[in-house]
C-alpha cells in the first residue's frame, strides 16, 4: 500500500531530513514512527501527504508515484489520506459538527452524505453529544477527537498522525491511541509518529525507528527503544 524506495529528502538549506529510506507498509497495518527530535518523522509524514517532494527516490502509494503527481491530481490523492496533528488544527469559530462537515463540503460531497456521515463519525470518536460545541469549549482530548473525526469522515484508506498525543496528558493520550487502534481494526492503515514511549511499549505494534534521517530499526511488535 505504501512503499518508500530509496527516499532522500534534503531541505533547501542543505539539511538532510531523510537519507535513503526504503520500506513497505502493508494495507491494514498499524505502524509507530519513533525517534529523537529532528530524526525526520514529520518529514516522513509530509512526504506522504505530498506537502513535500522527495529529493531522491520514490514514494508509491496504491501504485501511484506520489512525487510525480501533477498539481491538479494532488487534492484527489489527499482525499485518500486522513491527517491528524499535534495542534488539532480546528476552526475556532465553527462548531464541532461544522468542523467535521467542512472536510466533506470542500470535496463537494452531496448534502445527504454530509448529514449521514458527520453524526456517524462523531459517534465513532465518542463525541455524538458535543456536536454543537465550539472547539474552545472542549478539552484537549476532545478537540483531538474532533480532528480525528474530520480526518476519518471521508473514509480514507490511510490515516497519518503526527504526534497526535503530544499536547495531551497520559490518560487522554491512551484514549486517543485506543481510538486509533479501533480505527485500524476497522481496516484503515494507520501511521503514527510519536514520542509516547509508554504507549508504544504497551501496544507492541510495528515500530520504525528513525535517527538522523535513517531507519535504524524496523520491528514487528517492537518497543519504543531497542530491547537489550
Amino acid at each position, binding site marked *: 500500500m505504501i512503499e518508500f524506495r530509496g527516499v532522500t529528502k534534503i531541505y533547501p538549506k542543505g539539511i538532510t531530513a531523510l537519507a535513503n529510506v526504503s520500506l513497505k507498509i502493508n494495507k491494514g497495518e498499524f505502524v509507530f514512527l519513533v525517534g529523537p527530535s529532528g530524526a525526520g518523522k514529520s518529514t516522513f509524514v509530509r512526504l506522504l501527504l505530498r506537502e513535500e517532494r522527495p529529493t531522491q527516490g520514490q514514494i508509491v502509494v496504491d501504485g501511484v508515484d506520489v512525487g510525480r503527481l501533477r498539481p*491538479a491530481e494532488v*487534492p484527489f*490523492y*489527499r482525499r485518500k489520506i486522513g491527517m491528524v496533528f499535534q495542534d488539532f*488544527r480546528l*476552526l475556532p469559530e465553527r462548531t464541532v459538527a461544522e468542523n467535521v462537515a467542512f472536510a466533506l*463540503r*470542500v470535496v463537494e460531497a452531496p*448534502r445527504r452524505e454530509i448529514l449521514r456521515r458527520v453524526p456517524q463519525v462523531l459517534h465513532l470518536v465518542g463525541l455524538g453529544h458535543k456536536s454543537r460545541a465550539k472547539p474552545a469549549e472542549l478539552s484537549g482530548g476532545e478537540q483531538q477527537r474532533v480532528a480525528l473525526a474530520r480526518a476519518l469522515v*471521508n473514509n480514507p484508506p490511510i490515516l497519518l498522525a503526527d504526534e497526535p498525543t503530544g499536547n495531551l496528558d497520559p490518560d487522554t493520550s491512551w484514549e486517543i491511541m485506543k481510538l486509533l487502534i479501533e480505527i485500524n481494526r476497522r481496516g484503515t492503515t494507520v501511521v503514527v509518529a510519536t514520542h509516547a514511549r509508554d504507549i508504544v511499549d504497551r501496544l507492541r505494534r510495528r515500530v520504525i525507528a528513525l535517527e538522523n534521517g535513517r531507519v535504524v530499526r524496523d520491528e514487528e511488535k517492537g518497543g519504543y527503544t531497542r530491547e537489550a
Partner: protein
Amino acid sequence: MRLSTWEFYLRETGRSLMRNRLMSLASISTVALSLLILGLFLLGAVNLNHIASTLENQVEVTAYLDDKLSPAANKELTEQVRKLPGVREATFVSKEEALERLKEQFGERRDLLAAVEKNNPLRNAVEVRTLTPQDVKPVVEELKKLPGVAKVSFKEEIIERLFALTRAIRYVGLGIAVLLIGGTVFLISNTIRLTVFARRREIGIMKLVGATDWFIRWPFLLEGICLGLIGSLPAVILVGRFYRWLAANVYSTLPFIPLLSPAQVLGRLSLLLVGLGILVGGLGSAISVRRFLRV
C-alpha cells in the same frame, strides 16, 4: 458544480465580508465613487457627441442665389448642387418660404416683420447638408464657383469645436477612468489579500483534506465580485437620479439643447457600470488570489 457548493461559497463570502466590514465598506465606497465619476463623464461625452451630430445634421451650408434667375434656372441649379461630391442633400428654399420661417421664429412679435412683408428682402437659397463635416469646406468652394450663386454661408466652426470638445472630454474622461479603476482594483486586491491572510488556517485545512485549487479560489473571487457589484449599485442609482433631474430641467428651460432622453441612455449605462463593477472586483481579487493564495 453542485448547488450545495454554491450555497457554501455564498455563506463563506458573506462571513468574510462581515468579518472584514471596514475594508469591505471602503472598497465598496471606492467602487461606487469611481463608477459615479465615470458615469458622469460618459453622460457628458455621449450628450456632447449627440448635440454635435444633431447640429451637423442641420443645415450647414446655404448658397444664396442670384435674384434674377428664373424658376427653371433655380431648379436647374439645385440639381447641379445636389450632384456635387460630398453633398448629402440639397433643398431649394424660396424667399417666400424663408420669410415664413422667419415669421415663425419671431412668433408673437411677427408685427416687426410687417415692414418687409410687402417687399421681401430675402433671397432664394439652396440649403445643403454634407456627408461629413470634412466635406463642408470643399463643398463651399465648389458652390462659390457655380454661376448664379451670389453668396455662400456656413457654420462650420461651431460644429468643429463641439467635436473637438467631445474628443477632449472623451480622452480626459478615459484617463480619469483608467486612474480611478486602477485605484479601485488596487484597493479590492488589498481587501482580498487581508481576507486571504485572515483565512490562512481554513485554507490550510482545505488543502489538507483535498479541496481542489479552484474550490479554494472561488470564494475569494466571489468576494471581490460582490464588492464590485455592491459598489456599482449606488453609482447606478445616483447617476440615474442626477441625469433624470438634469434632463427634466434642460427640457423645460433650454429646450433647444438636444439632450438624449434618460430612457435612451440610462439602461445601457447602468449595465455598463454594473459590468465594470463586477469586472473590477473580479480583477482585484484575481490579482490577490494569484499572488497570495499559494495553493
